[in-house]
């Protein structure tokens, strides 16, 4: 696939890629513009959560005990920091695996002498790892959502429920899209192998994945850690 057919006919530099003003592939610039819009999307969701913090009329509440009459019976704070710390770690590790996957694709044609080299150089392994860790994070989220509902917090219950589930739900949807994207790359790797020429596609998927991870770090800090 041509990087930027619109400027065909001008011989580019050493890579033999088509000419671009910056020398970068157009897809890389586009993904950054996309990430810019996503920043504003999550900024709006996070700001709303923070504005509505402490303003729910009825419980359950994130960090405070809920006593009658705000709740029918006394309820403990509903957020589970230890469990969410584990899922955050999982997502962070998935970003590490993503970095290794990209490196494996870029360095596919380098000679690999030791078992360790071959391990690090296996794009399928690291793509699987990223996908599985991402899916594990989603599993944690599903567990958290269902346990909250059992404890009396749904998206309709109060301002906290509405803003929390919408924010983390949007984030989870983005993780899901990322897992599907990475799964597609994995399928292509099985079908015809991912060559260094495909690195740009893995690179933009990686940028997306890291962005989703950074958003989670912001969410985890602002919603779970800061009381």
């Amino acid at each position, binding site marked *: 696939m041509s990087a*930027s057919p619109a400027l*065909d006919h001008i011989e580019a530099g050493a890579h033999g890629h088509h000419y671009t003003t910056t020398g970068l592939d157009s897809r890389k610039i586009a993904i950054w513009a996309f990430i810019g819009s996503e920043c504003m999307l999550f900024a*709006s969701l996070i700001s709303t959560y923070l504005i509505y913090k402490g303003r729910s009329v009825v419980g359950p509440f994130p960090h405070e005990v809920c006593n009658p009459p705000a709740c029918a019976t006394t309820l403990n704070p509903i957020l589970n920091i230890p469990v969410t710390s584990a899922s955050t770690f999982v997502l962070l590790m998935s970003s590490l695996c993503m970095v290794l996957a990209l490196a494996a694709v870029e360095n596919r044609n380098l000679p690999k002498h030791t078992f360790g080299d071959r391990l690090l150089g296996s794009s399928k392994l690291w793509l699987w790892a990223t996908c599985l860790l991402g899916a594990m994070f989603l599993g944690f989220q599903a567990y958290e959502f269902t346990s909250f509902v059992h404890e009396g917090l749904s998206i309709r219950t109060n301002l906290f429920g509405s803003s929390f589930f919408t924010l983390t739900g949007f984030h989870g949807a983005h993780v899901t899209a990322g897992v599907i994207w990475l799964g597609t790359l994995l399928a292509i790797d099985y079908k015809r192998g991912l060559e260094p020429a495909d690195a740009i596609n893995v690179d933009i998927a990686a940028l997306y994945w890291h962005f989703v991870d950074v958003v989670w770090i912001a969410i985890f800090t602002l919603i779970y850690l800061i009381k």
Partner: protein
Amino acid sequence: MATVAASPTYAGTESGEVTGLWSWLTTVDHKRIGVLYLYTSLFFFLFGGLEAVIIRAQLAGPNKTLVSAEMYNQLFTMHGTTMVFLAIMPLSAAFFNFLIPLQIGARDVAFPRLNAFSYWVYALGGLFITFPIFFSVAPDGGWFGYAPLTTRQFSQGVNIDFWVLGLQILGISSLAAAFNFITTIINLRAPGMNLMRMPMFTWMSFVVQFLIVLAFPVITIALVFLQFDRFFGTNFYEIGAGGDPLLWQHLFWIFGHPEVYILILPAFGLVSEVLPTNSKKPLFGYPVMVYSGILIGFLGFGVWAHHMFSVGMGPIADTVFGLTTLLIAIPTGVKIFNWIFTMWGGSIRFTAAMKFAIGLVALFTIGGISGVSHASPPADLQQTDTYYIVAHFHYVLFGGSIMGIFAGIYHYFPKMFGRMMNERQGTWHFWLNFIAMNLTFFPMHFSGMLGMPRRIYTYDAGQGWDTFNFISSIGAFMLVISTSIFVWNFFRSKSHGAIAPDNPWDAATLEWSIPSPPPEYNFAEIPLVESRYPLWDLTHPERTSEIPHTHEGWEEQDKAADAKAVHIEKDRRTAAELGIPMPTPTIKPLIVAAGIIIMFSGLLFIHRPSKAIAFTLIFSGAAILVGTLYAWLLTPLEPEHH
């Protein structure tokens, strides 16, 4: 003067398709997509104008009964929504599409299929949000849809559902296009075209794309909250649950104010093309024009709460936003002066386009003056929600954006269609339009100051408003006549206009160096650009002798070893003959767009007792969307070459 000789058509594609519905449905050529945007947005402009005419007929006198109160609400809501989202923005998009690649010396945008996708989402989304009015269930909560009025409790019907979902769909179109144009302008400029050599229209459009990227997600979330409240029972705008009655307003206007700069900056860019060309002088103060455009975009994010001076934010917030609003008048005023200084000492040629461009300078200034008066919170307390505000924004949007767009249409029609528009009809259009526009909107300053509120479907006699309203309505009917002249001119000239030369206006920028209309590949040979006014360097070097011609910022000239110096092209050979690979036309962007519309339609049925219809639509839409998207992404853009 007019000839019926072989009229230039769009160059054929590799598959040989030049005409016919299928060639338009599958096109990925930015020029054709620009023309599609132009036709569709002109249609919606007329439709929104019709809604306005009915409004003015209803308000021509006191206590009229032409339409009911509810229908009146639908009319002003749809007039605003149509004009903002379906007319002005897509008219600007028509020019982004047609012009930007030509101005920067590229063969197309960075992502041609994504470009087609943006158009089809707009076209289908526009139909989605418009057709309810034929069943009297059009959105009726104002174009700004304030919650809690638009929550399920106070707006039970489907009206607001169409509005919320329709705007989400349209947002997808604008965002996709913004990613495309940002990439195109950053990455596909011809060798030598550094940023400070770009034409002003491209510069202003560049700023606009960033505004879209940063502002649209905010309204997306505001709409998501409203959607979730209406469809899923969440509490974002529920006062009883502790919801903030101002949340919607803040989120909406954080989008809404940058939105109005999105509406005006492209028109400013078009004026900055038309004025210098027809003054035979370079633009006065090009760098300042660039910086002020950027500053307007930047400051535009800091003024939003001037739409909320009457809600009780407190003196500190009021003061801060009052100050920032006054501040933003400065770069805007600078542009007005630079346009005047461009014309000063020039040799003015009063083409129809030039008349409209000068019209913008005059009428936008009037709108800007009333705008500055709104910046003071105590003054605005009297002005807000009256017709004084209606006067202001129609002066800047009609006297500003629409005038600028008309200037662009008259100026670029020859390049787009290979024929000239009729200048006499253009003159009639201009003067009738100018007089009618002032007749319609100037009296609103007075009726507003006399206390006439906005959004009332009728009014009692004897309050001092009758005469002003009557004059406004006369003006509106006159606008129908002037616009009809334009529509006639537009379509008649397409088939019977004089054949256009390649550079009828003796203009300076790259788009005028290629045939009218351009061949599918735009440039047979991408030029090496060495100045801001490449064609004037060839034909009128005395005009640009005072502008520095440097090689600054162009270190990698070796990359452009193949690029030829700027030259006039008359080539009409096909891409195949020249060995230029062209993207393959494809129906997939349209199908993906249709899938999105189907998905969103499903939500309209989510409240039925049986969820079958809703889920069928949502899942089938999603399947179409995802399946076709995969096929699209796995298909190369061009046939294999090299």
